[in-house]
């Protein structure tokens, strides 16, 4: 018995070490970006920054915050995220509610037609041609309309609606309510948790989305943060701020790029506690079948 206990102790220690290491590997890259963005040019050049900022320096952030382009792209992202998410939640609810009703005539064929789109799609080019034909290219509608309903989310929502007792709907019928009123006054108030989950789910995907904007928008003024960030951080395009960065001996392009990365992660970090709570539930609900 004593021997097993000792072996257990060793196991626990090794396990803890491995998990701490995993945690470190996950966090360190982000931490490193943060501390470098806050360090002085000399220390970055010397490459001696490892766990804390050295030569504490926030000039990069000052330049980033003084950049109109960045503010504009933030405003764009906010616009796409808010309007996109409102469309998402409304459309997903309107699709999920009728399909959740077992007495809905046509439920089976409509469900099939819709779920089929999860498995077959026309692909990148045909969708692009449709958006072009609708004259949506280079407008915000090209960003917010094509992903209006995520079929996967819709199924999660439908499953959640199905769990509301049918007796509530029936008594509302007796009181003379129609289906639209029932959805608004009974189903939606009872579904606040799933609506909150969906709102977060969609909002994060809009916030992080980059490919549609790259594909459909030409106008720099319409770029969301993610596309601008690609230009600055990955392609190294500093045209908007190169003057400020070059003339400031305290900072390097590195500071500037890392500061841009950090300010784009901050909103996600702020809502992360909420996200974690709702999303882990969402993953589990999603385990149900279509």
């Amino acid at each position, binding site marked *: 018995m004593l021997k097993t206990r000792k072996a257990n102790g060793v196991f626990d220690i090794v396990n803890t070490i491995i998990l701490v290491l*995993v945690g470190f590997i996950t966090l360190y*890259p982000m931490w490193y970006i943060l501390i470098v963005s806050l360090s002085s040019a000399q220390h970055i050049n010397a*490459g001696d920054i490892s766990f804390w900022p050295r030569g504490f320096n926030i000039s990069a952030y000052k330049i980033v915050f003084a950049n109109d382009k960045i503010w504009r792209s933030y405003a764009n992202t906010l616009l796409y995220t808010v309007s996109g998410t409102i469309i998402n939640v409304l459309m997903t609810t309107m699709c999920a509610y009728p399909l959740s009703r077992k007495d809905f*005539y*046509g439920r089976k064929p409509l469900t099939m037609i819709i779920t089929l789109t999860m498995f077959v799609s026309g692909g990148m080019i045909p969708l692009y041609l449709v958006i072009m034909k609708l004259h949506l290219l280079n407008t915000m509608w090209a960003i917010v309309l094509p992903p209006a309903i995520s079929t996967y989310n819709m199924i999660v929502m439908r499953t959640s609606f199905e769990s509301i007792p049918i007796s509530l709907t029936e008594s509302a019928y007796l009181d003379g309510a129609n289906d639209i009123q029932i959805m608004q006054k009974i189903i939606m108030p009872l579904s606040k948790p799933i609506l909150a989950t969906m709102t977060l789910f969609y909002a994060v995907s809009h916030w992080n989305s980059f490919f549609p904007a790259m594909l459909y928008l030409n106008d720099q003024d319409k770029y969301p943060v*993610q596309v601008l960030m690609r230009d600055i951080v990955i392609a190294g395009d500093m045209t908007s701020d190169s003057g400020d960065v070059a003339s400031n001996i305290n900072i390097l392009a590195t500071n500037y790029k890392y500061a841009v990365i950090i300010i784009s992660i901050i909103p*996600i970090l702020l809502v992360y506690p909420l996200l974690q709570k709702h*999303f*882990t539930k969402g993953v589990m609900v999603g385990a149900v079948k279509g």
Partner: protein
Amino acid sequence: MSRHAKGYARKQMKRCKYLYIIMILPLLYYIVFHYVPLYGVVVAFKDYNIVKGILKSPWVGLKYFQKFVSEPYFWKVVRNTFLMSLYNILWGFPVPIILAVLLNEVTRKRFKKVIQSITYLPHFISTVVVCGMLVNLLSTDGLINQVIKGLGGTAKQFLMYPQYFRTIYVASSIWQSAGWTSIIYLAALTGIDQEVLDAATIDGANRIQRIWNVTIPAITPVISTMLIMNLGKMMNLGYEKVLLLYNGSTYETADIISTYVYRRGILGNSFSYATAVGLFQSVIGVVLLLIANAVSKKLSETSLW
């Protein structure tokens, strides 16, 4: 249809009138943004011309399919897609399972929660940020090269060498998704009967024996379903990351079908050619998914539909 049945249908439809009204917009959405593009796949069989539109462009049959199958570069792109997916599954698939098992063995709740919170986080970081970090950490004066120089090696511009691309892609994918995917296995692990675990302990099994003989077999159905589904989704490799990380000097290993479609179609304006290539990818993807689903049905009676 008999008159009686017709009357019944009409009555039912009238009863559900408001439900149809609610569904008008969603249905319109599915038609415009899913079914019309599905129809748009016909441009693969036509010589699409923007001015003429889909309907008036002339049919050319399999011209574009013959064209791409005869190009060696196309097969290289197909090979890259499969290899990148395969390595992604080979290295990436076991990590969340191991992570879940290790987390499950932790007795201190707080520590477990902290590690979970940390490992789920990358799932919410955008692809652009992940790639931005990679580009900078892997640059000649980035973190990785500083470590290498510190150990006496020479700095390398990793993203310029085709031989490192897959490693970078796979490793960063693990970083992004391992924690998040472990949720599914953790959920399966909580379903294990505590009595069975206690019985194993009384029989003298140590922790590793218990993991190997009780825990892992208990979640094998979930593992096999997940594996089959992953294999079924092999063609849907995340291309955004490739698009952000690759460059002319790494196309040799980095260029996959989706990025090729993007370059030829959108940037090169060869809409018909790119649609044909995309259709090839979709068809293989659907076939793989059907196979995966059939296998999964046979093995564990769980299926996608």
